[in-house]
């Protein structure tokens, strides 16, 4: 085992940096909590009949009036904070991961193709990327949100909120992937294994995805982690501006937006528990991203 760890540089570095290990444990714990929320959470915060306004605004158990029924207290609707947070993290992660996945597929696909084909195609892709960059993420989200509302039939609008939000975040993140993939592809194009494959007459798609892609995954993986963190933060920010998710299916961002109302009112837990949870999640992901960057770019160590 020890020998195995020694031989794999990433593993070895991992076991030798406590902050990374802590981050990994925190991220994993949150991930497990989020994935298994329906089984772990005491109540289902989406089921309106499972909580009652009568239980509203109860503080965490260690405060006066706190009850062990709601260890972290309840919000203004009487919803158990633990359940809300677990489900919220679940939704935030789903949105973050999906947005990141869409952005990476779109961005890597376009970037790879632009780098491989070059010429006019490359120029067009890069101009589209420029346009995307000229529209800040928040504006993109508003745009998508607005268009979706215009196009979708009313009965779908509510259900599509998550999809729309995910798409909006994905659109504002893809450029990063495209630029990185394109730059890395340029580097790989000069590598002789690519020339060998081209010379042999392999299919361009095979060269792009079977040969080049595995070789540029390193930097992309770093961007994936960093962008997952920004996707989660972006979702929170959009929710703060009121273009995020509705309050009855709250993500962490929506929980914070709701909690904002209780900033001064004494019910600190409604704001600060989800906020701390979000920060812990994002910090962990960022620490892991930093770590991956170090592994893939040993010069920076």
């Amino acid at each position, binding site marked *: 085992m020890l020998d195995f760890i020694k031989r794999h540089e990433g593993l070895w570095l991992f076991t030798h940096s406590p902050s990374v290990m802590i981050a990994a444990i925190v991220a994993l714990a949150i991930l497990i909590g989020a994935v298994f929320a329906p089984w772990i959470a005491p109540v289902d915060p989406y089921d309106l009949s499972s909580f009652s306004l009568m239980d509203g605004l109860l503080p965490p158990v260690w405060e006066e009036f706190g009850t062990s029924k709601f260890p972290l207290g309840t919000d203004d609707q009487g919803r158990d904070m633990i359940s809300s947070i677990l489900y919220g993290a679940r939704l935030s992660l789903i949105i973050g991961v999906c947005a990141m996945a869409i952005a990476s597929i779109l961005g890597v696909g376009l970037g790879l193709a632009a780098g491989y084909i070059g010429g006019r195609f490359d120029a067009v892709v890069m101009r589209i990327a420029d346009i995307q960059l000229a529209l800040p993420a928040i504006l993109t989200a508003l745009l998508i949100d607005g268009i979706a509302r215009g196009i979708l039939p009313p009965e779908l609008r509510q259900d599509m909120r998550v999809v729309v939000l995910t798409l909006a975040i994905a659109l504002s993140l893809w450029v990063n992937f495209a630029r990185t993939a394109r730059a890395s592809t340029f580097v790989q194009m000069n*590598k002789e294994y690519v*020339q*060998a494959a081209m010379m*042999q*007459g*392999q299919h361009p798609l095979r060269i792009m995805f079977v040969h080049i892609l*595995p*070789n540029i*995954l390193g930097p992309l993986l770093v961007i994936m982690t960093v962008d997952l963190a920004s996707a989660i933060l972006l979702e929170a920010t959009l929710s703060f501006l009121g273009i995020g998710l509705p309050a009855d299916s709250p993500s962490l961002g929506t929980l914070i937006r709701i909690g904002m109302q209780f900033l001064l009112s004494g019910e600190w837990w409604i704001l600060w528990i989800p906020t701390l949870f979000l920060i812990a999640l994002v910090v962990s992901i960022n620490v892991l991203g930093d770590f991956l960057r170090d592994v893939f770019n040993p010069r920076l160590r």
Partner: protein
Amino acid sequence: MLRVENLTVKFPSRFGDFTAVQDLSMTIKPGEIHGLVGESGAGKSTVGAAIIGLLQSPGYISDGTMMLGDTDLRGLDQQEAHRLRGKRISMIFQDPQTSLNPLMRIEDQLVETILAHEDISAAAAKSRAIDLLEEMGIKDAASRMQSYPHQFSGGMRQRVVIALALCTNPELIIADEPTTALDVAVQSQVLDLIRRLAEVRKVGFMLITHDIGVIARIADTVTVMRHGKGIESGPTAQVLGNPVHTYTKQLMAAVPPLDRKIDRFMVPEKDDIVTPSMNSGAQAEAWLLSGTKSDPIGLSLSDIDVTFPGVRTSIFRKPDPFVALSEISFDVRPGSVMGIVGESGSGKSTLAKTLTGLVKPANGTMTLGSADLPGGKTRARKHPSRQLMQMVFQDPFSSLNSRHKIGDILAEPLWLYGLVKDQKERQELCADMLGLVGMPPEAINKFPHQFSGGQRQRIAVARALLARPKILICDEPTSALDVSIQAQLLNLLKDLQKAFGLTVIFISHNLSVVRQMSDDVVVLRNGRIQEKGPSEQVYEDPKADYTKRLLELTPTMPSQWMS
């Protein structure tokens, strides 16, 4: 002047301490050029770095003494060491392209170095800088000094680098592969310059190089290193001409001579090459032979021009095209080896790319056997030539996809050209082919990074053979390899060529290597053919001035040193 005794340098790692240099001792007198020669990984650069105090973290000197005159180099603190650098010891790096700060004028870089060590006025420093540049052979130095590094050519840049190293009159200059990145002609000039500086200024040089020819040409004394240890040391003529140690002998034997063609290189038995056992490779050999029953085919080029679009500088004017190859015509006889030789920028790699269809010629025709060979994108992906012509690339570290297993890399041509349909059969054939090129068959389950450069080049050869080609294009296949490995690979290529009647196009900048390999030779310069003909004729009796000069300037060893 410089006295090094029992120098030991260690690099701690998670696998324990790695000893890069062990018990090395040497002395360099003023005006002496001391060559430090060895193959990659011998620790020769580490010695230089240790002396000037620039060991890469986390390396450290664990033992030994280093005295520069009366100064104990190990006893200096950081401040003192930094003041000594440039003042008394300086260094020249391999690549003049990257050694100069691209954002600063030459003048600023020179003046700042002089002012850092001497208490003189800026004007005085400037005039010294001008003198120095002129001494280095840069004309009109006062105005040229205002330029930025990118405005100088490679050779000129290395002169500037030397001027920078010299501008504070150091006692010792450590030159780490100073001419490796340069062409023969420039290399010769730079070597002359170093020689002159040693003689006139009495500067001691430590010349670190892998090129024994360079050592033979200018070094007074030499130390041969291997695995961090000094193998043999003494005056150059004695060590190289009459080596005592087996390793030195083997090294000398592996150096390809320029003045004659030898049949096979004497190669040392090395642990990382499997001697083909009786059966290993037989199946692959049979498979290959079954496919090449028909006669070998030839290749001919007639009036090939290749141009690239130039850099556009205006929206209104089309940029002038850059001519990479011009009026290239030659015939490669079926089953023969055609050598193509030229310096960097001569267009030899473009030629390889044109042949393989990566670059489209503007004019001219190519013929493969009796069929027309379309160029560039007009060559269909399924064109038969894609299988018939295979290539071995220069850089063994990038020519194999590092994310694929050796087995997958090797099986790709079998699958792609539909040569072997069965997956299991493919794997067996690949394993056997590895045996044929002198690799253990188990290698199919490993990744490229688990192999050395020489081994990877063998894998690359195996990959080429697995397409069952008739023509093998080798683009600088050995230029990234050490001489002993180069010798092995050249032997292998010779054997395979004979066994399977391959037509080989062998491209290299190294005249000696080309001579050993080829039946015919083409000399390229700036995209044009300078001379072509049978090898022996071109080497023995060159017609073109260019060929003559090349042959003259290539550093070689006196033939009497070579056994």
